[in-house]
């Protein structure tokens, strides 16, 4: 490797986290630690009905008996669950502001720094944004327009109050509380998140979007998102995250459940850019996310797209249960790890119904001293006649101190199902670099161009609004190279 490449690598690895800042807002917290009182406190604060509290306590009793799943290729110190605040809401937010002028100006400023001014988005992008600042929804825009169509888009707390029937029917139906220890933990202490219900035959006219942001130190954020697409409906949902710079590790365990009924389609896109820790591997978010979609009805479709560039630890497997006949599951992922980041991400496609199809495209890029693992399971159950899967996972290594791993599990119990899997691992091609340099690009620009080309198959799956941000993020992750 020539010295120039080494210099470029140096700039990549020393790349500072751009969004590292903290907004000073007085936080109201219960005591540290996790016990029944904490859960009762959360439930009380959120004015929850009795049945919800019981549901939480049941999950908590399950969690107490469970151990963290150990199979991931991750290395991190044991999490002390008693040293975390489980609820933190900016003061004065029990009564929600009616419009943006009532929102704390400091909060608005935070979003401005992130380049997502609510006002501007409201007017220009036509995106309804449900912003979660720590644990309470700050403002929900464009509600009126959605209401006209019968679409429910609100915080999960509000949905518990206003739509208890839907919550009772669907919450925990895709990810049971006892699924594994992180899902049980989330079920016990979740504070906020989004709830979306698209009624029969409605195509949601705009991209629904939420920006999550962890703010207070030592506060694990536990969102719960539930999206239900009724027969023949369509929705595209965006989730994006950035978090301020912190030295203490922050725990994050979200649960996302999607349910697509007959002929419905859900598209779920994520850009995750939480604080990854500094160049010595200190700090950063621990991100343990359970995302699962159920294609319950015939001809339904669920598509996951994710761009993962942040977090010290990423543990995330957006999966699809393909139950309805002819249902389709898709998973597109770009995961970039730098410095001491560790990512173990992938998907799980469970084919139950006839003629179900799934497609997995995963691109992993490792830089610095990071470890990047793709872990995916594709299984065809006995009745999945004529089911079809195609999987492609490619890894790119930049530098000789990082690692790229691929761990697919492939299980077929049906003799008419067809499954294909391919993977490759390599470094950036010297010839391609040379070609780009020859045409007048700097070394950094050339690397960025090649990496962007490598990810293109996934990035083009993102909705327009997000594609730009995602490309920016890819570039920032390789910073020093592109402007």
């Amino acid at each position: 490797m020539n010295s120039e490449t080494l210099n470029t690598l140096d700039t990549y690895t020393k790349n500072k986290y751009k969004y590292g800042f903290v907004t000073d807002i007085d936080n109201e917290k219960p005591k540290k630690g996790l016990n029944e009182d904490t859960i009762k406190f959360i439930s009380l604060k959120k004015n929850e009905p009795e049945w919800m509290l019981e549901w939480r306590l049941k999950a908590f009793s399950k969690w107490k008996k469970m151990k963290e799943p150990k199979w991931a290729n991750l290395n991190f110190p044991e999490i002390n669950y008693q040293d975390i605040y489980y609820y933190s809401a900016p003061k004065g937010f029990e009564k929600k502001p009616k419009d943006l002028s009532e929102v704390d100006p400091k909060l608005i400023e935070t979003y401005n720094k992130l380049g997502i001014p609510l006002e501007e988005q409201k007017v220009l992008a036509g995106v309804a944004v449900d912003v979660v600042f720590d644990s309470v929804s700050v403002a929900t825009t464009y509600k009126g327009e959605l209401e006209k169509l019968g679409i429910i888009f609100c915080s999960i707390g509000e949905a518990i109050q206003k739509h208890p029937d839907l919550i009772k029917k669907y919450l925990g139906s895709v990810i049971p509380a006892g699924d594994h220890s992180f899902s049980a933990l989330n079920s016990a202490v979740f504070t906020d998140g989004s709830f979306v219900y698209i009624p029969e035959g409605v195509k949601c006219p705009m991209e629904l979007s939420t920006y999550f942001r962890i703010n207070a130190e030592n506060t694990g954020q536990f969102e719960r998102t539930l999206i239900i697409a009724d027969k023949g409906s369509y929705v595209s949902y965006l989730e994006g995250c950035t978090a301020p710079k912190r030295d203490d590790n922050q725990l994050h365990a979200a649960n996302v459940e999607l349910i697509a009924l007959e002929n419905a389609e859900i598209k779920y896109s994520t850009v995750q850019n939480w604080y990854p820790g500094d160049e010595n591997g200190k700090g950063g978010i621990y991100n343990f996310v359970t995302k699962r979609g159920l294609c319950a009805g015939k001809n339904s479709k669920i598509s996951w797209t994710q761009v993962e560039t942040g977090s010290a630890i990423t543990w995330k497997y957006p999966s699809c249960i393909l139950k309805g006949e002819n249902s389709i599951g898709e998973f597109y992922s770009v995961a970039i790890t730098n410095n001491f980041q560790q990512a173990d991400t992938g998907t799980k496609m469970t084919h139950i119904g006839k003629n179900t199809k799934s497609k997995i495209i995963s691109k992993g890029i490792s830089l610095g001293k990071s470890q990047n693992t793709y872990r995916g399971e594709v299984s065809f159950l006995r009745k999945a006649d004529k089911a079809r899967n195609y999987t492609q996972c490619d890894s790119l290594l930049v530098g000789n101190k990082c690692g790229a791993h691929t761990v697919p599990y492939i299980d077929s119990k049906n003799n008419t199902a067809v499954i294909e899997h391919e993977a490759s691992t390599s470094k950036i091609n010297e010839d391609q670099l040379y070609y780009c340099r020859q045409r007048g690009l700097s070394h950094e620009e050339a690397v960025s161009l090649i990496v962007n080309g490598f990810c293109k198959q996934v990035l083009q799956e993102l909705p327009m609004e997000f594609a730009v941000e995602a490309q920016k993020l890819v570039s920032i992750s390789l910073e020093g190279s592109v402007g």
Partner: protein
Amino acid sequence: MNIQDNYLKNKKNIFFSENEDIQNHREKLINIFENDRFDKKNNESIKNINLKNFIDFKYKYLIPEETSVINNNQDNNYSIVSVNGQCSNFKDDKIEITKILDEDYNDFSKNDTIENNDHFVNLNSLFLNSGFKIVIKKNNNIKIKISNIITDDDLTIFQKNNYICEEGSSLNLIEEYENKNNSTSNILNVIKLEKNSQLNHFLIQDNSPNHNLIITSHSSCKKDSTYTQKVYNFSEGYVRNFHYSELIEANSEADLQGIFFLKDNNTSNNKTFVKHLAEDCKSNQIYKGILNDRSKATYFSNTHVDQVAQRTEGYQLSKGILLSDNASYFSKPELKIYADDVKCSHGSTIGPIDENAIFYLRSRGMSKIAATKILISSFINEELSSIDNQQMSEIIQKKLVRYLSKVK
């Protein structure tokens, strides 16, 4: 009976039970058994295994009455008959065959490529009752054929073999496992290839339904050496093929290939693992399987590339054909890469026979069964046509015809 009692009761029949180091090592192994929760989901060595039979077995071993035969037909051809895993001593200027020694045992127990929760390997070390060591001397080019014979029913053979190819030597090794009685063989082959040596290893497995064969191999390759292994599994009984290769010096190569043909209720577990520990090495892992009736198979493949192993080329391919509704196939092709200048890939497919291809052949006047058979033959043709030994190629063709005759 638990493992410890079983061991203590049969101690007098077991190799090296007087040696203190080995005794200590075995105590550790017993501990592993006692503390393991036998997690079928995460422990690759016990997937699809009936745990009860595997822990609660009846130990029985007979020292063979007639000594095994070694024939030196022609100059460089040797044919060996190993009886109950034992082989008599032999020595000439090209090869040397001896019993396995306690230093070989100790030498191997220090290697950590095979996971310490691989229970079958642990059982092999605990209950070791047979085995031999073959050394191929410098710069010789020879062929060996080994027939493995088990004399009685219900025997439990725990065998450790050592193969050492000295510098510049070349060995063509054919092993046959064709047993009709209901015994269990648990065999561990430890293979060492010195500088510039070569080993072509063929394993033909064709046992009756009640015979269990557990075969594990560990090969290590030094500079410029090449290890090629081809496994043909036609057995009607349970077979486990776990093969590990370590490329410890530059420019060495490991090639692990296998084909299995399963039917009825049969199960087969397969694993290949290549560890690249030096620069400029190459590896290939190719397994193909055909599963009929209610058969089950697993295939784990793993390429591990160490940080120093630059300019590595590592390829994996796994293909499975399911002929029946009730057959199932699980595959897990893993890549673990810590170096950046590498070319590694894996591919994996599972599916039925291509309907369009069947349609094409039927439209040319062929019956459905004939078409299916032709397509199965062509699926594995690449592997069969690469066999350069005429005699062996015929043997395998015959077995394939026998398997195909049962396909409906």
